[in-house]
């Protein structure tokens, strides 16, 4: 892994891709395709947003990308691994080493301090694998967490908790970070700050971010926006303003 540089040497390098991905739910009688033939690629060093109305399959697609769910048909390739060929154990190891996660509800461990939370993944393997401490320190610094490392989640605001979660997601230098509604529990200003930081941290690095969101403002921080409807990707655009994204979302919703 290389350190980040603004020159973005990774731009265009694919970190994850899907081919004709399909995921059906339900029994024979009433089968619904939550993801219905999606072929997309996600790049390193960029923040890709997936937007779309409720039930359009955004979360399902993200779970398939992360190996947390198995497709009915089609393939996922992540950081050079074909997920379909990996068993549970190998998928867990891949998540541990090559992926980071940011949740809507933060999901920090309540009994651990902020720093312990950031270092939690170090302990998940058979042997302790300390992260690059220099990188960790720079993350803590850039996320403005220096003064609160000894506090527990209950003593942090939502925005602070989400920043700790971002540090946890990035500390092991993953290939890709998955974020499902990362600003869903934050107010507009706080959400904006958090996304700004996330985007700055990955832009130009070799880490790609896949973010699911309802919120046009959040999506406006992305380098690329994918719109989904009824399990398909119906629109793809480069970085746009919140107003444009909102207009497009409305248009997509009316078009159904």
């Amino acid at each position, binding site marked *: 892994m290389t350190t980040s540089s603004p020159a973005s040497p990774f731009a265009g390098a694919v970190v994850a891709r899907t081919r004709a991905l399909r995921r059906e739910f339900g029994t024979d009688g009433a089968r619904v395709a939550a993801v219905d033939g999606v072929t997309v690629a996600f790049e390193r060093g960029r923040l890709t947003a997936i937007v779309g109305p409720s039930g359009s399959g955004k979360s399902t697609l993200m779970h398939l990308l992360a190996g947390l*769910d198995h497709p009915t048909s089609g393939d996922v390739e992540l950081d050079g691994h074909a997920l379909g060929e990996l068993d549970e*154990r190998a998928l*867990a190891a891949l998540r541990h080493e090559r992926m980071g996660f940011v949740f809507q509800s933060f999901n920090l*461990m309540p*009994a651990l301090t902020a720093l312990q939370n950031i270092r*939690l993944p170090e*302990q998940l393997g*058979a042997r*302790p694998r300390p992260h690059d401490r220099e990188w960790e320190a720079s993350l803590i610094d850039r996320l403005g967490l220096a003064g609160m490392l000894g506090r527990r989640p209950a003593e942090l605001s939502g925005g602070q908790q989400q920043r700790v979660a971002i540090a946890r997601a990035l500390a092991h230098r993953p290939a890709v970070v998955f974020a499902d509604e990362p600003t869903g529990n934050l107010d507009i200003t706080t959400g904006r700050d958090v996304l700004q930081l996330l985007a700055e941290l990955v832009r130009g690095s070799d880490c790609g971010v896949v973010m699911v969101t309802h919120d046009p403002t959040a999506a406006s921080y992305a380098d690329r926006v994918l719109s989904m409807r009824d399990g398909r990707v119906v629109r793809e655009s480069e970085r746009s303003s919140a107003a444009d994204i909102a207009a497009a979302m409305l248009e997509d919703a009316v078009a159904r």
Partner: protein
Amino acid sequence: MSARTGTLAALAVIALSAAYIVLLTSLTSLLRAGLARTPFGQGETPELVLGILAVSFTIVALVVSTVVVTNAFALVTATRIREIALRRLLGASARRERRRIAAQGARLGLLGTAVGIAVGAGIALAVFAANAGDGGMLDGASAADLVDPGAIVPLVALIASTALAAWRGSAAVLDASPVQALGLATAQETGGLESTRLRPAAAALLLTGLVLLVVAAIGGMLTPLAVLVGLAGGTVLAVGILTGSNALLPRVTALIARALPRTGPAAAAAHALREHPARTSRAALGVVISVAIVTMFVVATASVATSQAIEYEGSTDAVVVTEIMLVVLAVVGALTGVIAVISAIGLSTTVALSTRLRAREIATTRILGQNRGDAARAILIEGAVTSAAATLSGLAVGSVLGWVGAQSVLGSTLQSQLVTPVVPVLLVGVIAAVALVLTALSTIAPMRFVLADSPMRAFARA
């Protein structure tokens, strides 16, 4: 692993305790009646000894079942805590909610006690029928002797303690304002409310108990009357352990957990144990008590037998010593058996509770890359550490009490003035097996609960 599990566990414990109390009192009363009609039992002593034994084992059963029922209700409340908080937010008054929950506890107490009385009386009757008229000890007794009015007191205490346990289990949520209640629901789940400081009262009791025990051991060199000091010391120490359990047991657990690796499932288990010290100690308390009782009797007997064998130039061979020990183990084991079962239910309820409350954390950790096997292993280790801490503590406390008992009674009769302390290998083996079974029993259900789902589905359900 739900409110139903907790309710069922509480019901089972109440029924078991009631059955135990009825069985114990009616068999004692039967035995007393039988004895009274033999020349052997004319004096007051056998009756007194029987009475003391029955009362002490009844008290122990009451204490253990109250602890377990309180924990079971904590499980019930914990799984409903959001619902309760929400009901209050929507306008239900705290007083009504509290009454509803306490009434539920009282109902459960009544139902369990009724079932227990039926079962206990049935067994007692069967024992009587099987032994009457065979020329044995019970020959002089009649079926009417089975009914001991004294049983009413512990049975009422049992029902009352159930209602109290239900009440206490929900106190935090009901004391708060409706909005706070929702927040508290979270705080309670995260264990922020548990204190592990050793309260001065408990420390004083422990210290007094220990001093009395030392005095008894030394006094035993001079007079058998030292056993009275020992009795007082043992009782004070036991009360001290009970009141200080929230501070003591977590420390034993932490000591054992320190031997674990600092990564992987062991780290997750150690974290879980640290998080809920009070709950863990309540879970272990019943096991500590059962193991301590058995150990105390066995160590006392073994020490006495061995010391006498040494004193009389080894004329009493090891076989006889072992035989005596086996008999003691069987008798005390039978008396302690039900208490041990109650304790086991308590332990498994608590491990279930702790898993249930951490479902979201466990799912999160799995999403972050912990594999299924390690997630299960973490729960297994947590259960193993808890039961190891409990059995080891029981073994230690029981050994000390057993030896002090033997020493205070017999020390003065020996040339060396010291009873040789003996902790039989057999006992340690039996206890280790108990710990193993306990671990298995307490972790199977939670492990299955955690492993049944994919991480994502577990997360969504938590």
